[in-house]
């Protein structure tokens, strides 16, 4: 079996890994989050593929002077907001929903004007793995976390989307100016991506593409919409994950359906340069055999999640999908030939006695090993899959950027 896990056992109560990326140094960086127990702060952890070594490199919340026992909602996560820079550093933004210490649960709406339990607001920071120094750019906006973020490296800007108010922001790394461009929806897209010109893209609640025109410095709501099943009207057509195509001309993405589990879960490709607004291609269900039945008929409301999109060095698009129709239930690794759209089940995402219940995002190393951030286990972990080409030693050159400049 080419599947194994790397367990972050020194953090026994932390329960989710929402962010994962590869640094220029070839190490895998993971935001190890404490979402479901009050009073936990996020840690930045690195994994060195060459040495097979885990290092707990930063207690992020403490480093940002937001200790998790201060009574506020904790800086419990780095959500899809850990991005690598070509200079070898990492940019990150913190996120909320971890409860204050001692509390069972926390939601931003319940504590918005509560000076004690409120979330102080997300920080953006830069971390240099070489020196282990962190530069804290401060609190961006009170009460809100950063759901997803992308680095526009040539423009020296970060674009992101806040939670819960779903505001699009631009952070200028040259001037340290944070700008709130306003609300783009309600439900919160889970991914933001850029094209070659570093225009930003995400979606509204109906899956219509919202473009940040970087030259005009404004948001444009396009008429291009993510696909959805024939019986639906496009409601809750959010994006979960996206990954650039190897040629950079398009992105591949997938729906977010964890809160609406009976929602169809499609893959799509968005071609940036096909027509004035780009073009969406419906690639059909992420993976769903006929025995699974249509998602809308699933009254058990089981998980239909798909995440962890990453291109392998073999040109296949790899991703993880939850199988509720097959024992054992859990996430399975799929790979898709992007030319023929043929899908193939590789294996269950199972190792060390745990079958993954939820895979967030994925990355890969210079050798072509694939890494999948896993959520909902204590201690939390990532799964590592080594495609056959790794053993064959087919990948010899260190290509940068490896995966994507977004979280």
């Amino acid at each position, binding site marked *: 079996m080419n599947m194994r896990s790397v367990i972050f056992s*020194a*953090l*026994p*109560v932390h*329960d989710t890994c929402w962010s994962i990326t590869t640094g220029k140094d070839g190490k895998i960086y993971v935001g190890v989050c404490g979402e*479901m*127990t*009050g*009073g*936990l702060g996020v*840690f930045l952890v690195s994994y060195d593929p060459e040495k097979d070594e885990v*290092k*707990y*490199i*930063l*207690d992020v919340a403490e480093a940002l002077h937001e200790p998790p026992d201060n009574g506020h909602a904790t800086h419990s996560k780095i959500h899809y907001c850990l991005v690598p820079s070509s200079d070898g550093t990492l940019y990150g933004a913190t996120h909320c929903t971890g409860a204050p*210490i*001692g509390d*069972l*649960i926390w*939601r931003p*709406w*319940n504590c*918005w*004007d*509560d000076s004690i339990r409120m979330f102080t607001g997300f920080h953006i920071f830069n971390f240099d793995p070489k020196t*282990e120094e962190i530069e804290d750019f401060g609190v961006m*906006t009170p*009460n809100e976390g950063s759901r997803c973020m992308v680095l526009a490296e040539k423009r020296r800007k970060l674009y992101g989307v806040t939670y*819960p*108010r779903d*505001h699009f922001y631009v952070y200028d790394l040259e001037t340290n100016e944070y700008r709130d*461009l*306003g*609300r*783009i*929806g*309600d*439900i919160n897209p889970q991914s933001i991506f850029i094209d070659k010109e570093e225009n930003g893209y995400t979606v509204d*609640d109906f899956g219509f593409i919202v473009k940040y025109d970087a030259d005009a410095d404004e*948001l444009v*709501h396009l008429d291009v919409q993510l696909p959805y099943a024939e019986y639906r*009207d496009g*409601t*809750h057509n959010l994006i979960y994950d996206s990954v650039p195509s190897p040629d950079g001309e398009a992105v591949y993405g997938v729906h977010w359906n964890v809160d609406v589990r009976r929602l169809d879960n499609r893959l799509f490709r968005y071609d940036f340069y096909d027509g004035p607004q780009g073009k969406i291609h419906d690639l059909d269900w992420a993976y769903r055999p006929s025995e699974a039945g249509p998602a809308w008929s699933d009254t058990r409301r089981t998980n239909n999640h798909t995440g962890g999109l990453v291109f392998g060095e073999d040109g296949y698009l790899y991703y993880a999908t939850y199988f509720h129709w097959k024992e054992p239930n859990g996430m399975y690794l799929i790979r898709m030939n992007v030319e023929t759209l043929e899908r193939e089940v590789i294996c269950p995402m199972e190792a060390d006695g745990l079958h993954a*219940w939820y895979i967030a995002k994925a990355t890969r190393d210079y050798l072509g090993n694939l890494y999948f951030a896993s959520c*909902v*286990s*204590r201690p939390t972990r990532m799964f590592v899959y080594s495609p056959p080409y790794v053993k064959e030693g087919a990948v010899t050159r260190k290509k940068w950027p490896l995966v994507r400049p977004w979280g």
Partner: protein
Amino acid sequence: MIEEEELKKRKWPAPKIPFRFEKLTEEQRILREAYSRIGADYTRDVYVREGKVILRPLGWKGIVKPIPPEECAITSLARDPRGRIFGATSGRRSHLFVYDPDLDYVEEMGVLGQNVCVKHSLVVCSDELLIAGTKSCKPGEALQGQIISCRIDPYSLLEASPVATPVEGEGIAALTIDDSKKTIYGLSTESGTFFTYEVDSGKVQLHGKVDEIGDFSDVLLSGPDGCVYGGKRLGWLYRYNPAEQRIIPLDVQIPSFRGRAMYNKVDSLALDEITGIIYGGSADGVVFSFDPESRQIICLGKPTTARRVRALTVGNDGVVYGVSGDVSGLAHLFRYDPETRDLRDLGVPRAASEQWWHGYEFDAAITGLHGEIYLGEADRISHLFIYFPPIRKCSAYECNEH
């Protein structure tokens, strides 16, 4: 780097909820179920649960595109005698729209102008005229405010035309109407000059500044006595008496937290047409009532911890509904029942129909013909919210008595 040994020595908080797929003892299972129930109630309880909140996009869903983002913040609402709700937006462009409850969708009527704001400045005249007052959207930018009038039927701004420019070089901060006199009362944005506009003759008259140092609220209300009421610096009230054609400072100050009078302002006003009581909300988020006859002002309390009461209206049964919450804040709908004197937060207005949406900011409220409450959302993307208050449980006899 943090050594693993150091992390292992740390005392971590104990998880309260085991994961569902973990092997649980009976005690853990019971605990998990109990916590799940508490959690579910916690997440729902923040939203309005008494009555029902729905919304309508600013355009017939599935047929047309709604009024675009950055142009759709609803900053004025008005109702005509037939129960149709008219609204004006502010932003890159200002739009007029109408919501006819019989048709149950919003229809855009047209564009008033670019970078125009129509805030607290939309009135309906019984001659089937809709009248709007404009100002600049950008604070400090001089834009000649206009009174714009258009026929309500048909819903079209084709006939909309500027009919007056009340104060040279200034915008219009607020309008109100005394329909019986066919007179519109207004305030200018910079100097706070009070003016009147006679609908039939088109005559404009200026009546001086409402505040000597130009510190005033952008709110006006036609009172039950034919006078017009407003607020000035330190939360003092004034009125304009049409019979005397002059502004009269009142010896009445809205309630303020100690030491904060300098920051205090009337934020919103609403009239109970049956009792003649005026209700108001302040910049500090305090709700008050004012009896124009006795000139008594009563502090009714503060429904939430948030600042401001940006929207206020009186329901058909005399219950007051308002929205607390500052710019970039979190709106809460509240109600004040004059009978029980109960001032209560109802929660965050969140709609699931016609779409799932949290309402964070509101700048306008008005009561519908049948007692439904319309709330004008004022965000980058905005909707017309409709709140249906709950019907009290009582016998038909008791209800009719009531």
